[in-house]
């Protein structure tokens, strides 16, 4: 009996997912407050030690994700690579410094990324840009345009799935030539594609007069 056909998955949207339109309290909250909340979660994860605190912070962020009605499957898919990294880092910490540290470090990593996912899922990138421009206003005193800073952050988020795509294309090309075991056949073209994409994006931004 043949297996039931499985539809291909959509392209990975990056570790922080995409905006999901909605009308929850979190969607209506100001992006500045949400950025502050994200910073607070980061500070809590780093400064409050212990497994109970890590579990509590993670549960709190999980509750916020539920409050923002983040789609479970898409969110899990966004966070999955980080969860895997957290598991590896946590396992190493368990071995090196004991199980409490291992669990705490792994949970803290997942918590911070989940909090960032809640932020990006409930805030339009455009609205986030406005908030980042406001937050970055003091940078004007050191010669950095807030608009440029905000755009750089937005581009960084967009670049992550593009990088994954560049590696996937390079991997497919290497496979097609029977070179899938040669790391050079993956890394060199992926790096070249990434640089070419960065240059093309720079050109496109300049052509649109963005960041001037």
């Amino acid at each position, binding site marked *: 009996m043949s297996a039931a056909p499985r539809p291909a998955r959509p392209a990975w949207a990056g570790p922080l997912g*995409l905006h999901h339109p909605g009308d929850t309290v979190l969607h209506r909250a100001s992006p500045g407050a949400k950025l502050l909340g994200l910073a607070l979660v980061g500070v809590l994860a780093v400064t409050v030690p212990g497994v109970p605190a890590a579990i509590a912070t993670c549960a709190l962020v999980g509750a916020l994700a539920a409050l923002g009605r983040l789609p479970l499957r898409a969110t899990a898919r966004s966070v999955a690579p980080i969860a895997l990294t957290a598991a590896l880092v946590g396992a190493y910490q368990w071995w090196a410094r004991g199980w409490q540290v291992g669990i705490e470090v792994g949970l803290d990593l997942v918590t911070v990324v989940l909090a960032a996912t809640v932020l990006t899922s409930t805030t339009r*990138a455009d609205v986030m*840009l406005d908030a980042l421009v406001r937050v970055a206003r003091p940078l004007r005193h050191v010669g950095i345009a807030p608009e440029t800073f905000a755009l750089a952050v937005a581009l960084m988020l967009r670049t992550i799935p593009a990088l994954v795509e560049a590696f996937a294309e390079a991997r497919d090309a290497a496979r097609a030539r029977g070179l899938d075991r040669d790391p050079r056949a993956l890394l060199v073209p992926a790096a070249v594609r990434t640089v070419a994409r960065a240059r093309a994006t720079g*050109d496109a931004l300049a052509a649109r007069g963005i960041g001037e």
Partner: protein
Amino acid sequence: MIEFDAATVTAYAARDGGGAPDDVRTLLHPVTCRLVERRVAVIGANGSGKSTLARLVNGLTLPSAGAVRVDGLDTARDGRAVRQRVGFVFSDPDAQLVMPTAVEDVALSLRRLPLAAAEREARAREILGRFGLADRAETPVHALSGGQKQLLAIAGVLATEPAVLVCDEPTTRLDLRWRTIVDDLLDGLDQQVLHVTHDLDAAARADRVLVVDEGAVVHDGDPAEGVARYRALMAATAGCAARSAATG
């Protein structure tokens, strides 16, 4: 109006086998012309200098000598003002779409205008509707088809209503259906359009055709004659290449 005043582009080229990059190559020999027609096509072989010519108009490439002016604005001196007047569409929309969703990408273009966030979003949605992409407003850009991406890229550029649109092979990666859609869209625009293309049917519909060969404009004028000149050039080049291959 686009004016090329002996505009020349040169670039350093590294010597074969390394060494100091002190050889200067001419990418575009002096071009002098005034383009006032609504539809101007630029055709030529790959690497002939078409894109260099197109990039001069938006100030993405600055002339090494001479000048390029758009409505009297010098691309070297008034780059910002020129880019507000000249939109540019690339062949690869992936490089051009920088925001996560379609509506956000169009809204990014509108940030140049003094609009409140809500008005910006409303305007972006209205523009998407005009381009038949209203139902794709919330779609992640990476999930759009190639044709939809190119349409979105054009929508993003036209959002700020530039006076001139430069298109660098916008239909090269598209299938026939999307090529027709994009061609029809470009044909119907009020803007002056400088269209770099390999599509000779599109070139033949233009009001004026420039043929670029080895960095020089070798024909400037009637579209039918320009297309014939280009075909003759390509036939001669293909013949030379075939003879070289046959003789090893």
